[in-house]
């Protein structure tokens, strides 16, 4: 049962993310990405990480993708377009993408839980309590620093927008 669920969710995740990349219509791309997020949330639930699953849905599906859709609707980007960039830029993009993927694969490979049956993994690992304790004890400083980074970027966006209005 667990294995069937795991494989079907993974296949959906991979298929939808590929469709997201290859679909010409930006609207469908967003919806495929959404489906991908849901299957990943399903994988989180299988690891008993309900908190992570729900937050994943709230943040990505509920907030970020809504903004994506919003922009696509506003700019009317749903008509199929071909993106033309110079060969050099495309090459650099592919290279950095591959490097990033390599890094991620290697770092995931080295974790202890890799390749283990989901039922063997610590059942408390993704609960709000466990996560909160880890974040606010062991990783307090990195966590706070990320928050400051977020706030400064948000303030930055507001300031940039204000300036444009004053210039006009």
């Amino acid at each position, binding site marked *: 049962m667990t294995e069937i669920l795991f494989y079907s969710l993974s296949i959906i995740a991979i298929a939808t993310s590929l469709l997201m990349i290859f679909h010409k219509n930006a609207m469908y791309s967003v919806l495929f990405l*959404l489906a991908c997020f849901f299957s990943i949330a399903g994988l989180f639930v299988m690891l008993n990480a*309900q*908190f992570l699953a729900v937050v994943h849905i709230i943040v990505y599906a509920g907030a970020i993708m809504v903004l994506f859709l919003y922009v696509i609707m506003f700019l009317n980007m749903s008509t199929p377009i071909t993106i033309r960039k110079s060969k050099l830029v495309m090459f650099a993009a592919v290279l950095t993408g591959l490097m990033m993927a390599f890094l991620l694969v290697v770092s995931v490979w080295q974790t202890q839980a890799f390749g283990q049956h989901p039922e063997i993994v610590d059942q408390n690992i993704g609960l709000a309590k466990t996560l909160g304790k880890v974040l606010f004890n062991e990783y307090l400083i990195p966590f706070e620093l990320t928050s400051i980074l977020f706030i400064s970027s948000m303030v930055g966006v507001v300031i940039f927008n204000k300036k444009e209005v004053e210039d006009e």
Partner: protein
Amino acid sequence: MVLVLVLFLVSITIAAYSTFSERKVAAFIQDRLGPNRAGPFGLLQPLADGVKMIMKEEIIPTTSNTILFVGGPAITMITALMTSAVIPWGPSITIAGQKVALQVADINVGVLYVMGVVSLGVYGIMIGGWASNNKFALLGAVRASTQMISYELAMGMSVIAIIMTTGSLSIGNIVHHQNGWHGMEWNIIAQPLGFLIFLICAFAECNRTPFDLPESETELVGGYHTEYSSMKLGFYLFAEYVNMFISSAMITCLYFGGYNFPLMDWVQSNTNEIWFALICVGVFLAKIIFFIFFFMWIRWTIPRFRFDQLMNLGWKVLLPLSILNMLLTGAFIIFNQ
């Protein structure tokens, strides 16, 4: 499983009769009679409306995106009905030696689950509005998404204060936490500001007047469902009533003690378990019905906002207030330790 089916039927019935009582309440407020032809007191009106909706001709515009056009109402209805899974209807009862909780799933992140599903509700409207390929529908969809994103924030912040006082993300625990003082220790007493913010945001999330800008008929014809006809339109309208029912249930659970009622410990010691559970469910439903009535009362009392007023209220009033409420709650908890 049985509970899921019962819950589904109850949600649908209450939503159907909300459409009826909406017209009755409107009539009462405007000193009219309201629907009174179908059955005694017009009680069969929802049935007649349902049949009318299904029998009407269904038009799918040729310029629309058919798949998404059909998907929009479906998503709206699914997300509207999904939330009810985590609402606790009463204390657990023992049937044939087994403890049965009157709640479909007491997942330990219930509150967040509700927030998540609510935030997905906007997709049905956005997809439907976009797929209609109509500028009014698109404007309605854009308005809906802007409004929902803006008010979700303040809503989440006001709920955080409740989570801080309860120390749990499970709605079952939050309701259970409010049964002190003979069943009167409701969160509204400790969190009046939070309640006000949550209430306003609930109105905005349901797209109810005074926040019904996505479908304001004076400006946008019909808003996001301009192009919809027959039962698809019915689904959009019906989902609004289901949402209203679920929001009322959430308001009751978070701020008005859920199924707790005054002197409930006395009642518990004087009746058997089944009766007690039934009374609890009855009390809970009564509170929900009061809030549904409140939703309607507001609708026929307060006129619609202008869009910039709506944004100002959301970002410049409710959000700072909810952050203040969160800080005050935190300070209070620390000083009381």
